[in-house]
């Protein structure tokens, strides 16, 4: 299955086309999505940890929309990149570890939004539990970037 994906016409086009619109563009969009997703998540996390306390949470709720849009972009471009290298990525432990960290980061985003942003009233004090979620979120995204980057060197 993985081998047939890696040998598909799509994979061949993505990897061996000389067009700048093939692999380079897909990879760049994936990097762009990562930067936007992790950038938005880390700003929400830093706010919850007490940096920029004056920022009303309501005013940055829109950043969750940015995060999901960026995630959608990366789910698509990531799938394309996976197909291109399916025979290498499929059995790679680092690759699945990366996906697990991405999932953890997304779960944290959902929990953070549910606990701090929904329900109308602005929380006066950010609870210890919310701060722990923010720290886990920062660590999860850092780990996702680390494992993602390592794919280019180790796997």
């Amino acid at each position, binding site marked *: 299955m993985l081998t047939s994906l890696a040998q598909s016409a799509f994979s061949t086009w993505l990897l061996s086309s000389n067009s*700048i619109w093939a*692999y*380079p563009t897909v*990879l*760049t969009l994936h*990097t*762009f999505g*990562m*930067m*936007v997703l*992790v*950038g*938005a*998540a*880390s*700003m929400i996390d*830093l*706010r919850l940890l007490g*940096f*920029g*306390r*004056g*920022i*009303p949470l*309501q*005013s*940055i709720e*829109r*950043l969750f929309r*940015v995060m999901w849009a960026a995630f959608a972009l990366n789910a698509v471009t990531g799938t394309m990149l996976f197909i291109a290298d399916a025979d290498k990525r499929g059995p790679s432990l680092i690759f699945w570890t990366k996906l697990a960290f991405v999932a953890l980061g997304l779960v944290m985003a959902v929990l953070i939004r549910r606990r701090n942003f929904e329900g109308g009233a602005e929380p006066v004090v950010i609870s210890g539990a919310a701060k722990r979620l923010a720290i886990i979120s920062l660590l999860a*995204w*850092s780990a996702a*970037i*680390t494992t*993602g*980057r*390592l794919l*280019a*060197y*180790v796997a």
Partner: protein
Amino acid sequence: MPNLANLADLAHLHLLLNHFPTIGTILGVGLLLLSFIRKNDHLKKVSFEVLFLIALATMPVYVSGSAAAEALKGQSGVSQAAIVTHNDAALGSFILMEITGFFAWLALWRMRRIGRLTTGLTYTVLVLSVLTVAAVSRAALLAGDIRHPEIEGGQYAGLFGQSTGSGFISAAGIKDYVLQHPYVWPTCETLHFIGMSLMFGVLMIVNLRLVGWLRGMSFASVHRLLPFGLMGFGINFITGMFFFIAASEQYTQNVAFHWKVVLLMLAGVSFLVLTVYDEAWALPASAEAPLTGKLLGASALVLSVGVMYFGRMLPFIGNAF
């Protein structure tokens, strides 16, 4: 239009640009000293702005210097040892210059928060900028030893000695370290991506507020996040320098890298403008920024995405790796 991928033209560019760090830092220090005499805080602010801009302008100077060294490789009448000595001195002064620029920005940022300049930061910038003048002048003098027959035999030629590897910082040592330890490059790449995300997160929140897409927050409340943006830049400057020093020939002639440096400088300028943009900082939470503010915010976002784009495209548009 000079062909920027041409080593000779890049070397020419180095000869044009290399006066900016020396003269610019002296100008910055001069304005700072004058501000003490005239007891003028506004002038202090200007001197910090000048030092920050010169720190940005030093980037293409260092980068084009590596191209100039490649252009001179193997030419007769050129002392390779003098090039190495100049390069190490230039690298040291470049690092010092960036630290000075960082503290100059920090002083401007603190001023925004507490309404006046703090003595501690002001004197830190003064000491750092004087050290930078000394370091950058030494680098400039050492450059004279590379190939300027008109100064040979003069009492200032070879003023700082011709021996290599005696300096505090050795570019060759850094290069060897990066290339001999296989974990260094991937580690730097990872940190480079984390720094980029952090930097873009800050730029996004501030500039989307300026543009008007994020609403209901004052600039004063976002103030505390700005240093995280510069922290991200610091991580990326350090890791980026490891890449550049270890494989400079991959970058010097790479047109994607040239664009990256140009856009990075412009993004730096927009970050400075944002820091000292009084109208925006005075805006209440619900108010919209004026049109110039919106344009500034939009251009900052476009520039920073451009920096990322040309960085990612180094192997594809250019010829790196």
